[in-house]
């Protein structure tokens, strides 16, 4: 199972590469709107999460008000479900 630290590091990398958001640390209270992530970049972020972490995140359940913490929790939950 992917560790909390691994998920954090991967998310930082994905947001940097796909959305040009530099997160020196992951502020889990920040929303996607706070980070100014464009819709097309967010689609790519979710695509990369599936590729890099093997977890499918439902785009319909995530919008501008989704926080990084919520995104991370979905990854951990779905990762566990996927076994």
């Amino acid at each position: 199972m992917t560790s909390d630290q691994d998920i954090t590091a991967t998310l930082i990398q994905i947001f940097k590469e796909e959305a040009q958001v530099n997160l020196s640390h992951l502020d889990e209270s920040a929303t996607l709107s706070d980070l100014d992530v464009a819709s097309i970049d967010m689609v790519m972020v979710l695509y990369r999460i599936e590729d890099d972490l093997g977890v499918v995140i439902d785009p319909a359940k995530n919008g501008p008000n989704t926080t990084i913490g919520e995104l991370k929790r979905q990854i951990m939950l779905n990762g566990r479900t996927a076994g």
Partner: protein
Amino acid sequence: MTVAVTGIACRTAAGATPAELWDACLGDPSDPPPKSFAGTFAGSPSLTIPFREAPPVDAARMPALAGHLKRATKNMSLALATAFEALGPMVERVRGDERCAVFWGSGSSTIEPIEASYVQLIAGGKTRVNPLTVPQSMASSPASAVAMALGVRGPSFAIASACASSAHAVAMAEQMIRAGMIDRAIVGGSEVLGELGAAISWHSTGVLSKRGCRPFHPDRDGIVLGEGAAALLIERGELAQREGRAPRAWIEGSFHRTGGTDVMSPDRQIITELVDSAVAHAAPSRGMPLVFNAHATGTVVGDEVELAALRTVAARLGSPLVVSATKPVTGHMLSAAGAVEAILAILSLEAGVVPCAARVDADGPIEHLAPIALPGLDRIHSNSFGFGGMNCVLSFRRA
């Protein structure tokens, strides 16, 4: 009211600027290099055809476009680069401008992302594809990329009329300016042929040349495809001049006819009537020949129909005829061809020279194309004929 072209830019296999392309058109065209299109999966077929490939846009040299180029296909990148280059210092002027439009000729390049996704699905064993497939494969994707990057707020849309697409984009700008609906427009077209399936599709039509594009020549054997893009800034002439922008040329008119029953061959009667209407509106000055940048793709039937139409109209006018055919240099850039050739027509007016040209007798073949000096040349027409009977002639006057 006058309509002026105040900015031009192009990126082609024969030159990355209008000046470079012009120089290439004044020389003898090189043989088109072969390009091999190969599938990315085991056992896929391949195809090698003569092809004029445009260099990709170097994002590092266009920092103003960096964010926009990141999600852009090569086709969209060429559109973005040429639009910015045609605008030059006007880039800031059009941001937020509700009276500025974007009209962009769109061909078959936008199928490229779909083809790549099919390869992922069928050969790559994937169950999903790049989520950019839809945003990048919309026929409007180059138009919207340009409009969003420029931040214009007037109308913007793609125009799809096959090989006449970007000529129709120029025409749309001219006519909407004359109608008072807009003050200016960024128009153009872009074409890329990046994937095996697209190349094989063209090859299967049977219209591609095996050796090189030789318009009007008795031994011509078809089209050489090319990649590239071109953009023009078209403005209400009085406004441009009041703001200190000198016209490169005036657009005197744009003319359209649809017709014929054959998808891949132009209709002689319709083409004759179309050319006739352009010439009736913008006839050559006394002592000047009738000058056309011909569509002239190098196909057996298409060139024959076009030349017959031009001869008929010239004879009726009692005027000598000069035709220019620049696709041996550029390749046929399909939806971008009309815009590229509009630029070459403008450069012809500025230089008093018609590139890749021949003086046309009443009959007899055209075997050689070369630059013809016509000092004082003040009018030129540019033909674009699309598959499916979509035809457009643009008429330019020297500024």
